[in-house]
């Protein structure tokens, strides 16, 4: 089970990132727990300064931009 966190305070770009993550997970057919973190304190606690951000199993993968579906799939494939 992969743990995926989408960090962002809830604006459009964060929503776009969330949608892209959901699409990538669905297309790959992997088991993943996708969590959206909107609380700014929690975001800062993870050391993320730029949102939207993407963390995979606790590792920061993308920060400050929306990753497209293929990029997210590549990240998930490792």
């Amino acid at each position, binding site marked *: 089970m992969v743990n995926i966190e989408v960090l962002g*305070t809830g*604006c459009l770009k964060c929503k776009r990132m969330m949608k892209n993550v959901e699409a990538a997970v669905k297309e790959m057919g992997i088991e993943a727990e996708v969590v959206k973190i909107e609380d700014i304190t929690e975001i800062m606690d993870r050391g993320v300064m*730029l949102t939207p951000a993407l963390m995979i199993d606790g590792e920061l993968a993308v920060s*400050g931009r929306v990753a497209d579906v293929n990029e997210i799939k590549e990240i998930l494939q490792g």
Partner: protein
Amino acid sequence: MAEKQTCSCGCGAGERGKNRIIFACAGASNTGQISNLAAVQLTDEGYGSLACTSLLAAGAANLTKMCRESDGVVIIDGCPNACASRIAEQKEITPDQHIIITELGIKKSGDRGNITDEEIETVVSRAWEGRCR
């Protein structure tokens, strides 16, 4: 109508340098008009900047130059006639992303009065997802 948001949270800072140019066919059919509405929404959301397809067709050298210097050209055509794409091709501009709306399950018609938010969202999400590259 499309959701408009001005974000003040400082998000997307890494994308500020992204300079995508968006051309819509803006044709007379429903799908042509959806192309324009989607391009406007993508501009509002910070995906890129809407540019004038007719100006490109008219031969504006500065716009052609802008495209070549951009981080990507996105073309949204309403139907397989692909008018915007053909205009770009004439100017030797190759799109990085080319979306044809009728290929997304939206039927072309002359009914411009019933364009829905979902239809616009279908096109906008397609762009953000990075499809049609």
